[in-house]
């Protein structure tokens, strides 16, 4: 098979695979579709044999870098290994075949899982209520800020037009605030990675609707003044939003509810056993403090006095911000999270936080010892940390991107590059608790070797990678020319 052939190019008229062929539809099923809406010609689908399909996709999959094959230390993304068992449980026929409109009496098993998951998430985050409705992190953020808005409006507290966002926040936060009709005001971060408290105090006022914060931040450090920050924002009448992007590091150790946050979203597709990053389904449940309980998005799972489970919807929770999708979130992702939480238990959750932090700090110290420069050398890493190659870029002409590309030749997936934006020429590295010490050591060896290469043969490093199916891609062309349709 050629490296570059598409499945469409393998097509031969009349060839087919029994397992892939569409089932012939009886005419009476088609009759419900009006004639003018039916297509006149057959769709252009590839006509290939089963063997061709299997080989084509197996070959393609082997070209990928993937957590199943390589270390994948993509910071800010928590690309940890997701146990197969969680997926197996979510795929049980009873879950898989349940229709979302099935009556409550036929969905007691599913509803009980959702009810318990709500309670686990409440406990692990220290919030008073949880809704599993948001379909992904971005929708969780939207729901969170929409609740902040609903809260201020219900109190007749108009004139709160601004959301404060620290520089070290997640990139989606400003987009969320604008989507909810707020203006964004950025709060600077000091040299040590903590929020500039004086600047925050100056920015807070009667126009402040809330503050959106990621803690630990994308600088990879835990915000030490969080209590003072919460006090400042609350005294100004604003609410505190917690972006759960980096929840993995503090799981079971510190609770956002105890830090003073009023609303939080969690990325179950990062922390709770669903693969993340393929654009596949996610789940972004929201948790709230007492005062935001009336606004939680629906539907939610509830339990009656007799122990049976039911849906809570806008007919009884009239103040809710309402539905975010046709049904309740992505059921499969929520079921994996339920299995994961049940199998870890309280003790296991704490170990996730401890071992992800230990792995990050071990890796940071070892990388510093082989000559890497930490962006915040005086700070303990939380779950992730930043290296900067500004020195290498200036003195050797070897950039963070060059080093990232060379890592691929060492069979290591590159960490996140050039993010967060406030550190030049940076790597954001997150090993997670699922990696062994040996895997971390291999990464350190690769980095040490590349730093040596950068000094002795910088031109070679700038040309990397050499061992992959493709060399450097033209990412400028890819960003400028977005039309990707294939035609014969």
């Amino acid at each position, binding site marked *: 098979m050629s490296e570059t052939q598409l499945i469409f190019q393998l097509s031969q008229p009349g060839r087919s695979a029994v397992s892939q062929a569409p089932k012939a539809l009886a005419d009476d099923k088609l009759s419900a579709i009006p004639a003018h809406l039916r297509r006149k010609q057959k769709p252009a689908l590839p006509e290939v044999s089963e063997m061709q399909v299997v080989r084509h996709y197996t070959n393609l999959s082997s070209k990928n870098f993937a957590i199943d094959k390589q270390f994948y230390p993509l910071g800010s993304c928590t690309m940890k290994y997701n146990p197969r068992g969680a997926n197996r449980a979510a795929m049980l026929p009873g879950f898989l075949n349940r229709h979302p409109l099935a009556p409550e009496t036929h969905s007691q098993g599913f509803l009980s899982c959702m009810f318990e998951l709500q309670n686990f998430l409440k406990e692990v985050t220290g919030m008073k209520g949880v809704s599993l409705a948001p379909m992904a992190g971005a929708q969780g953020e939207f729901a969170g800020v929409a609740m902040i808005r609903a809260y201020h409006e219900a109190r007749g507290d108009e004139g709160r037009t601004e959301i404060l966002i620290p520089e070290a926040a997640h990139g989606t936060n400003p987009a969320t605030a604008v989507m909810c009709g707020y203006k964004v005001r950025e709060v600077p971060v000091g040299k040590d990675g903590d929020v500039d408290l004086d600047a925050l105090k100056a920015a807070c006022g009667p126009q402040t609707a809330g503050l959106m914060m990621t803690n630990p931040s994308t600088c990879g450090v835990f915000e030490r003044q969080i209590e003072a920050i919460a006090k400042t924002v609350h005294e100004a009448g604003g609410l505190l939003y917690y972006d759960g992007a980096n929840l993995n590091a503090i799981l079971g150790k510190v609770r956002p509810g105890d830090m003073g946050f009023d609303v939080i979203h969690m990325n179950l597709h990062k922390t709770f056993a669903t693969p993340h990053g393929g654009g596949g389904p996610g789940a972004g449940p929201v948790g709230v403090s007492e005062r935001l309980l009336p606004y939680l998005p629906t539907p939610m799972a509830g339990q009656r006095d007799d122990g049976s489970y039911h849906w809570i919807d806008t007919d009884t929770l009239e103040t809710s911000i309402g539905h975010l999708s046709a049904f309740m979130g992505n059921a499969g992702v929520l079921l994996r999270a339920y299995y994961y939480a049940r199998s870890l238990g309280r003790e296991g959750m704490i170990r996730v936080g401890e071992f992800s932090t230990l792995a990050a700090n071990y890796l940071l110290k070892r990388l510093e010892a082989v000559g890497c420069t930490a962006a915040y050398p005086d700070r303990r890493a939380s779950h992730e940390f930043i290296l900067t190659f500004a020195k290498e870029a200036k003195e050797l002409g070897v950039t963070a991107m060059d080093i990232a590309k060379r890592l691929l030749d060492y069979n290591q997936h590159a960490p996140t590059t050039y993010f967060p934006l406030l550190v030049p020429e940076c790597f954001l590295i997150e090993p997670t608790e699922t990696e062994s010490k040996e895997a971390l050591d291999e990464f350190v060896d690769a980095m040490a070797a590349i730093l040596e290469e950068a000094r002795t043969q910088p031109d070679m490093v700038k040309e990397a990678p050499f061992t992959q199916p493709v060399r450097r891609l033209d990412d*400028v062309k890819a960003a400028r020319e977005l039309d990707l349709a294939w035609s014969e």
Partner: protein
Amino acid sequence: MSEIPAELRYASSHEWAKNDDGTVTVGITAHAQDAMGDLVYVELPEVGQVVAAGDEAGVVESVKAASDIYAPVSGEIVAINEALEDEPELVNNVPYEGGWLFKIAMSEESDLDNLLTADQYQAQIESE
């Protein structure tokens, strides 16, 4: 070291400003485009829009990042560089000439005094 023409004024947020009888041409510095990398998209203000010094007046987007552009002086936008729609790379290639972003009819001449000189801007990027 990237080029910093002596006759221009600079904002600490890396815009340059060139005054021609009250019409100020604005772009981003060679240093800024270098830090951004290859630009793929430039969002410009609308002609007729009134801005205050320090207001967001556009966005430049590269393969690495998106960054806001701030108006260095107050006034009305009187021209935008429409060539950038098809050729955002002009900002990378000729940041002080064909890569200009927009022109402002300045309402407060004194705004210029708040901007940095070439020497001051040079000192700022060295300390970064």
